[in-house]
């Protein structure tokens, strides 16, 4: 490959164009269409098994849509080499487990693999530059795992591991950041820190953030846009306050919902029946 510009690539629009995907004969994502733009913090919500995580796997390029396509600024994902993809899109998976005892620093530094040496085949052996160390350190400070840097990831608690995984994605320095339930194990302090940082990424740096979450109040208060998925399809798309309405939530989750003082409260439907 020829010389690449050293600056981080920019992404203005992540376009999902009628993407469909099935595991075997079971369709999981059906005709999903959405254009996500830089400066948006999109929350994807929906019941278990509605295809949220599969959609993220499509967006990161691990799976390819059977029909339709996903494109970055008009270029289909499959046109990018793996490293080029990883320079643009980072993912925080739901759970990151490893059989080996990598230290926190080693784990976070893995994010810097894609940034260098896209010179064909002989690219695996490489050493981190001081700039890489700097980026990893900043990400570890941000996620408050700096003091754990030399501990093996396998010795950490669930929440600490989650912060390490988020730090790794942040250190990847991509214009697009995908997060799959990033706060499922985080305490309130670290949740608030993460939201503050994501908002800054979106507002100040015009990054593009997509997160899957089960916390509808988080979607309501933190996101700039919400996508509601049900059985593989997007059934509502828009500003969280317009989309996360009692009617839609009742239809999707089969729960009673009401807005009270800017917060959603839920009750079981049977209790009201």
């Amino acid at each position: 490959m020829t010389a690449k510009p050293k600056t981080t690539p920019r992404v203005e629009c992540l376009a999902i164009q009628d993407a469909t995907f099935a595991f075997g004969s079971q369709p999981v994502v059906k005709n999903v269409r959405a254009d996500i733009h830089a400066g948006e913090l999109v929350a994807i919500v929906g019941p278990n098994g509605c295809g949220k995580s599969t959609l993220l796997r499509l967006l990161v390029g691990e799976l390819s849509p059977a029909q339709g396509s996903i494109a970055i600024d008009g270029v289909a994902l499959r046109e990018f080499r793996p490293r080029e993809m990883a320079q643009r899109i980072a993912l925080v998976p739901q759970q990151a487990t490893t059989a080996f005892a990598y230290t926190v620093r080693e784990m976070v530094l893995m994010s810097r693999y894609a940034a260098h040496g896209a010179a064909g085949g002989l690219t695996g052996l490489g050493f981190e530059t001081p700039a890489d160390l700097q980026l990893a350190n900043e990400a570890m400070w941000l996620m408050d795992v700096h003091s754990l840097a030399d501990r093996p990831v396998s010795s950490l608690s669930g929440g600490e591991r989650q912060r390490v995984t988020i730090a790794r994605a942040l250190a990847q320095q991509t214009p697009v950041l995908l997060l799959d339930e990033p706060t499922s194990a985080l305490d309130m302090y670290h949740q608030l820190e993460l939201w503050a940082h994501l908002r800054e990424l979106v507002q100040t740096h015009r990054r593009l953030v997509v997160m899957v979450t089960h916390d509808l109040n988080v979607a309501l208060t933190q996101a700039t846009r919400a996508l509601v998925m049900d059985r593989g399809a997007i059934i509502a798309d828009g500003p969280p306050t317009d989309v996360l309405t009692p009617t839609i939530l009742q239809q999707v989750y089969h729960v009673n919902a009401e807005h009270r003082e800017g917060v959603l409260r839920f009750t079981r439907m049977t209790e009201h029946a």
Partner: protein
Amino acid sequence: MNGTITAKSYARLWLLATLAVAAVFLLCLLCGYDVLLRRVTVGWPAAELLESRMLRLIAAAIVGFALGAAGVTLQALLRNPLADPYVLGISSGASVGVMLWLLFTGPLLAIPAVATSEFLRQLLACGTTIPAVAGAVVSCILVFVLARGRQSNSGEGGGGGGAVDPVTLLLVGVVISAINGALLMLLNNIAPGGVQRSLLNYVMGSINEQALTWWLIGTVILVLAGAYLPVLLGSRALNIGSLSDVESVSLGVNIGRLRTLCFICASIMTAAGIALSGPIGFVGLICPHICRSIWGADHRKLVVTAPLCGAAFLMAADSLVRVAQFSSNGELPVGVITALCGGPFFMVLLKRKGAVG
């Protein structure tokens, strides 16, 4: 600093590990120095003895290196620190290839034209590497296909993403080893007498001094280097590949290509070792683990240290069987030593699974 590698620290690691291996080599060469001394005092030339010892030590080093490298590669690839070419049946697959070759080329050696030609005999000996590689690759593919199962929605979000369950892995290894073991017995049964005799030692894994030539060693070194280099150069990607599939992709590793490359290379490395020695067990399990406890989990370090650790370990083990006369029944196969060390080690690892590191 812990967890980061610079060109300087990497070079230092290579130098240190190589020096350690060289030291072990010299020590092992002098094992049984009394025999050497006696020869010298009687006025016999010691050079011949030294040469045959060196040949054997170098062979042991190569086999250990190959198995250590194959072990660390397989472990990363299967995302499981219990993987080992012997346990998975890849070693025995290579042995089946070697046996087949011996069987079919045995009659050729009876032809006077072949028997008198040094070149042809060497060619036949060096040719073992080809069927060994074939047998190893077939076994390796079987292990992977059987152990991994099909793509599914499990581990949604890519959590598990292709980590092989240890129990499944071991079961697959048992099955493949059993089939290969049966094939070896079958081949032995139909083989002419000359081939038969050496089988028992071969199956246990031993370095046969008589069969070693510089030609064979040279061939094996070439094959081994060809398979080791891609893994060495890909060792940073190996770190990422040892996570889940979805993480590999999102961090920029072409996991499909890495997997294919590493499987082929690990098979070839195993086969290169097996061509010299027969299936010596557990080296690929013990050495990466020892290195991990010293240098941490980074595969850039492990791909350097585990093979060199394997070389040192096998040279020491082979010198032990050479010097120690356990009985009058001839030399003990070195595979007995490695299995006696590695078996219990393996059990401890299995027991500690979950805290493995």
